[in-house]
């Protein structure tokens, strides 16, 4: 194993010359002129890099702009001369982009924290003039991504090993320690900056994580779940309104849909009249954000569409993409207006106040006092039965609607499992969700293809007046391609459903619901 880089906190009164003298006892030292670097740490909104302990930063300094990517131990994962990209796909083709894209997918790289670093570098050489250890004399200041006053951080002395030269690294450490006063605070300046600014990348996750205990009343538990979902909606508002990436709107909509499912599936728990006031409001949110999501899906599917066309028709989709882009921009303006409206403000504040208010037993909420695990069991069993019933009724000639209905029922079951997972064995719930996901993926693919094919026909009409004939032709080819894929997906449905309806999954569900004491 390679030794890992160290970022010591420098004591007061230490001078660079003293460091150089210490290093010269290990080998000749090459000193680079001091420079100032402006650094921006980048991550996705859900902190995909941070969660892996990795740091990606855009550095602009004297040699130009570059991206530097490091692993949990500070080991280099790649370096690329390029400015900060908004998406991994903005980078030049190559392994760096491929690896980053595999991690970030469609998520944008957003600034997490800004650092200004004044650095003087020393390279310790061997007899051949080869660098065998690197040392940096660094002064850092941090600022929030949107700007604001810089916060000075601890001055540091960074010692970076060169792979395959552990001995000079050890010697350098020993010589530097002799200078005295080097501090180790178990982090580097990036960690310190996050702490100083109170930034926690990855604090947001699109997963439902609600702490519930058995014995809790249904009322209390459902309020907790709904508060969590409200938090998810709110967390995604700025990114949705700013169209930072397509996941914000998607996650926002999922939180809305989960909320609506909870209100529909868990009747009798919250006061009926209050719920009746809010349900149309959440329906409105689902509906005003729908067109923008559909257009996101079309545009995200475009590379796949292109690949499905014969090469000489691929560029024929440009007018189509422009049409989509125009409509997408218009749809996002609608979303922005809705989420900036008084109506939305009132919905959010009113809903939060309602959820946070202490529960009062009333006639509109006969199940408020039920133990949550009983409620959860009953609802899950019901939703599961419904999936089995609807799925079994689907045959080779069933209309697309039947698939759509089944898909909705699957989603309800999935949401219930996720809301209440804290009450049951997490491993068991995880496996169930996985079983269900196999079926959901099939149904989702079927539905997406249905929607896409229908939409393409609509777009072809919209382009009929001024679109070139080649574009029409390309869209025709695509519709046919989508219909073919849809037939394949439908063929696979039977197998998927049988697996889900089979004994293994059923037993799994029973075991989970029975619970540990069962």
């Amino acid at each position, binding site marked *: 194993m390679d030794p890992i880089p160290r970022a010591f906190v420098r004591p007061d009164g230490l001078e660079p010359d003293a460091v150089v003298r210490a290093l010269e006892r290990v080998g000749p030292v090459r000193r680079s002129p001091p420079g100032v670097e402006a650094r921006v740490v980048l991550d996705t909104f859900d902190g995909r890099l941070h969660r892996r302990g990795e740091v990606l930063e855009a550095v602009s300094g004297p040699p130009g702009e570059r991206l530097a990517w490091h692993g949990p131990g500070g080991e280099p994962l790649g*370096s690329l001369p390029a400015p900060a990209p908004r998406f991994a796909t903005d980078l030049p083709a*190559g392994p760096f982009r491929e690896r980053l894209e595999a991690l970030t997918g469609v998520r944008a790289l957003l600034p997490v924290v800004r650092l200004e670093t004044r650095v003087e570098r020393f390279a310790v050489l061997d007899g051949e003039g080869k660098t065998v250890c690197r040392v940096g004399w660094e002064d850092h200041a941090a600022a929030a991504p949107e700007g604001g006053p810089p916060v000075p951080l601890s001055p540091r002395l960074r010692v970076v090993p060169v792979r395959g030269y552990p001995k000079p690294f050890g010697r350098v450490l020993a010589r530097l320690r002799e200078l005295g006063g080097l501090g180790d605070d178990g982090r580097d300046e990036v960690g310190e900056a996050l702490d100083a600014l109170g930034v926690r990348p990855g604090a947001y996750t699109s997963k439902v994580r609600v702490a519930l205990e058995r014995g809790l009343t249904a009322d209390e538990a459902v309020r907790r779940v709904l508060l969590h979902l409200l938090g998810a909606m709110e967390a995604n508002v700025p990114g949705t309104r700013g169209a930072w990436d397509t996941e914000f709107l998607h996650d926002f909509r999922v939180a809305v849909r989960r909320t609506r499912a909870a209100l529909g599936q868990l009747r009798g728990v919250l006061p009926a009249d209050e719920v009746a006031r809010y349900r149309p409001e959440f329906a409105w949110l689902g509906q005003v954000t729908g067109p923008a999501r559909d257009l996101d899906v079309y545009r995200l599917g475009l590379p796949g569409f292109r690949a499905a066309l014969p090469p000489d028709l691929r560029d024929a989709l440009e007018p189509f993409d422009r049409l989509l882009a125009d409509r997408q921009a218009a749809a996002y303006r609608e979303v922005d207006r809705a989420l900036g409206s008084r109506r939305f403000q009132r919905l959010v504040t009113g809903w939060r106040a309602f959820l946070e208010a202490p529960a009062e037993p009333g006639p509109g909420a006969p199940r408020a006092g039920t133990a949550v695990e009983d409620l959860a069991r009953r609802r899950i069993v019901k939703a599961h039965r419904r999936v089995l019933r609807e799925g079994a009724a689907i045959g080779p000639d069933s209309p697309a609607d039947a698939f759509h209905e089944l898909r909705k029922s699957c989603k309800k079951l999935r949401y219930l499992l996720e809301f209440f997972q804290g009450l049951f064995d997490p491993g068991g719930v995880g496996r169930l969700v996985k079983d269900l996901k196999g079926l959901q993926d099939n149904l989702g693919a079927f539905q997406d293809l249905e929607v896409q094919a229908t939409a393409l026909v609509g777009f072809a009409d919209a382009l009929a007046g001024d679109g070139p004939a080649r574009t029409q032709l390309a869209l025709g080819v695509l519709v046919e391609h989508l219909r073919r894929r849809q037939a394949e997906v439908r063929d696979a449905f039977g197998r998927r459903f049988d697996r889900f309806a089979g004994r293994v999954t059923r037993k799994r569900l029973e075991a989970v619901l029975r619970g540990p004491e069962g």
Partner: protein
Amino acid sequence: MRILATYNGKGGVGKTAAAVNLAYLSALRGGRTLLWDLDPQGAATYYFRIRARVKGGAKKLLKKGADPAAWVRGTDYPGLDLLPADFSYRHLDLLLGGGDPGRRLRRSIGPLAPRYDDLFLDCPPSVSAVSEAVLRVADALLVPVIPTTLSVRTLDQVLDLRAACGAHGVSVLPFFSMVDRRKKLHREILADLPRRMPDMLRTWIPYASAVERMGVYREPVHRFAPRSRAAVAFGALWAEVAERTEGDPPGD
């Protein structure tokens, strides 16, 4: 991990110059890159100021279960590592030969795959078990060809070798090296050979003093003469190689 080997049975044609400069460019473009100097003479190792020594020798390095990463050394450039040459590599034929010659080399390379995007193999000038093993594990052979009648013949030998050892998976990508456009023969072969050899890369490397000076500076040309003709040519060559080998199914 993509495996690229600079190979030609003939000596002094520019294999090492290409391996060093292309590996440098691969790393500069964001690839995690390793260059393995397979030549006991250790020219590539020398260019990086690294000692041509592998503790325990080739035998230990190629032993079953050994992880070559333990011998890897970081160069002075981000993203670029070197697996040094060693005098014991003169016995590489014995160690890699016998049975399926690609098997042992593939086994040794295995642990490197998750850590690197590109592996360059700089081969010694020979037609041997080493070359055969390399042909079997590499995704592409980069073959420098000096535009002279004799050198062109060695290219045919590379193709013969590929056929003889049944290494059909490897693409052979020849490119002209040490080109002197003032020479009539060079100009003629430059025009003729690509017609016969459609896989030939379009970029050629000029005969240039900057390449010779690599031995003085002990650095890739881009470090000390980034605007030289040679640096520009290697830049174009890397772009072409990267494109031609993109999506080459990595053999793992």
